[in-house]
């Protein structure tokens, strides 16, 4: 036992990255009108970690990550990203922070008046302000290759399937090398095979780009493949936390219901 503890200590000292917290939320509250959606949300996301947030629809899972990226302002609590309180940031600070955070929307949110190439060039020219067309082309082709869609480079979003749109959306987010990825139901509306491909892609990209991720989903297969840690949300609070295997054996009825449906 002592030996194991010593081994763990050594491992922590050898890989300080594992300890670094990139998102720290404490007691976040958020209401829309009279409805309190987030009642008391607290979690830490460590560097290189994948957190999956499970919960029924309308429980405020997406609201949580919208607060993280500054799309919504929490009513209470504190929310630190890379050690800085996001609730007190001005527009310019928020803009700088957002460059480090990627957000994959449910439908991909591709700009439908632009080709795939233009969609990917957009953040490079507008956010990173790149001018060299050779460098831009190299980045666009590289990231499209990583998501396996190099052939679709000149297609319009309307010519792509749901899974392809999500992959391109993911490529557009990854092209600016974010340190944190927020996935809003990445597999919703996809067939099981494509869902699995997307989940495996999330893992592959996490390893390749060393990204920390928060994945909002109610797809248990996606949770099983991607999660280092799972948070289960109910009635605006987290009711359980643990690995997939730990939660699978949980006594909590609500938690078990997710796994039972999956089984």
């Amino acid at each position, binding site marked *: 036992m002592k030996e194991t503890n010593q081994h763990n200590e050594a491992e922590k000292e050898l890989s300080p990255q594992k300890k670094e917290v990139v998102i720290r939320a404490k007691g976040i509250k958020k209401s829309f009108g009279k409805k309190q959606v987030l009642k008391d949300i607290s979690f830490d996301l460590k560097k290189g970690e994948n957190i999956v947030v499970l919960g029924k629809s309308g429980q405020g899972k997406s609201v949580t990550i919208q607060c993280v*990226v*500054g*799309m919504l302002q929490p009513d209470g609590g504190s929310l630190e990203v890379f050690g800085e309180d996001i609730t007190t940031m001005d527009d310019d600070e928020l*803009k*700088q922070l*957002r*460059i480090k*955070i990627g*957000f994959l*929307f*449910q*439908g991909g*949110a*591709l*700009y*439908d008046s632009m080709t795939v190439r233009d969609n990917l060039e*957009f*953040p490079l020219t*507008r*956010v990173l*302000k790149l001018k060299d067309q050779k460098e831009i082309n190299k980045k666009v082709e590289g990231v499209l290759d990583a998501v396996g869609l190099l052939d679709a480079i000149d297609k319009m979003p309307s010519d792509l399937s749901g899974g392809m749109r999500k992959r391109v*959306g993911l490529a*557009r*987010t990854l092209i*600016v090398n974010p340190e944190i990825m927020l996935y809003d139901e990445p597999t919703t509306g996809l067939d099981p095979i494509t869902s699995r491909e997307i989940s495996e892609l999330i893992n592959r990209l996490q390893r390749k780009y060393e990204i920390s991720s928060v994945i909002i989903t109610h797809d248990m297969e996606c949770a099983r493949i991607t999660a280092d840690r799972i948070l289960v949300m109910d009635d605006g609070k987290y009711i359980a936390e643990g690995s997939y295997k730990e939660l699978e054996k949980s006594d909590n009825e609500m938690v078990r219901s997710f796994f039972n449906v999956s089984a």
Partner: protein
Amino acid sequence: MEAQQELSGWRKWLEGMGDYVLFFTRFFRNIFTGGFEWSEFVRQCYEIGYRSMMLVGITSFIMGLVLILQLRPSLVDLGAESMLPKTLSVALVREIGPVITAIICAGKIASSIGAELGSMKVTEQIDAMEVSGANPVQYLVVTRILATSFMIPLLTVIGDAIGLFGGFLALNFTDSISFSLYFNKCIASLDFSDLLPAVAKTVLFGFAVGFVGCYKGYHSDKGTESVGIAANSAVVTASLWIFIIDAIAVQITSLLFYK
């Protein structure tokens, strides 16, 4: 209960006005911040200007033609048939041309901007731009509002010329007048005080069309039906603003030029 409802109505109205002011401030601030989207501005000028030219041209041609046919009997009764080119040109250039062009553009352009930005909002494209650290106001709003403010005056000038040509054809249905005599009479009857205020107010009409279209689309709710509501509301509000601006512009022009 009724008083509470009335209070909440006023509150909503005031909040709406506040949103308009904030949106205007964001637009104005973004004109002067770096990174103007020239290529998008040119694309919008093409979409808004060139693609509306046929519609504005046909409408203006018919307006010129109809006005002459309607005016002719009255002026013939007064023995003032020779005043037809002057009457048409003054009416067309000062009032009918700018207002008709702006109303057509409100129907065609404000609705299309409202629907386009509305559907971008519904499909989270605007949110995606915002969270990526790009500036959606710079790319989507500034370019569209400046393009309408620039292209609607141009469309009006072209529409006026086509309307005068329509009037020339209408005059030749019953009378015979040469092209050069007709246009000389038209041009001679127009003054600097006719052209400048007319063009100046079309810039404001263009601004109203672009601003209202962008505001309604950018602030549409998240639902498919809200795209239709945004488009419809953009047309109605822009048309109303065109008449309000026209009423104010006429008062100012009268004070400054027609004492």
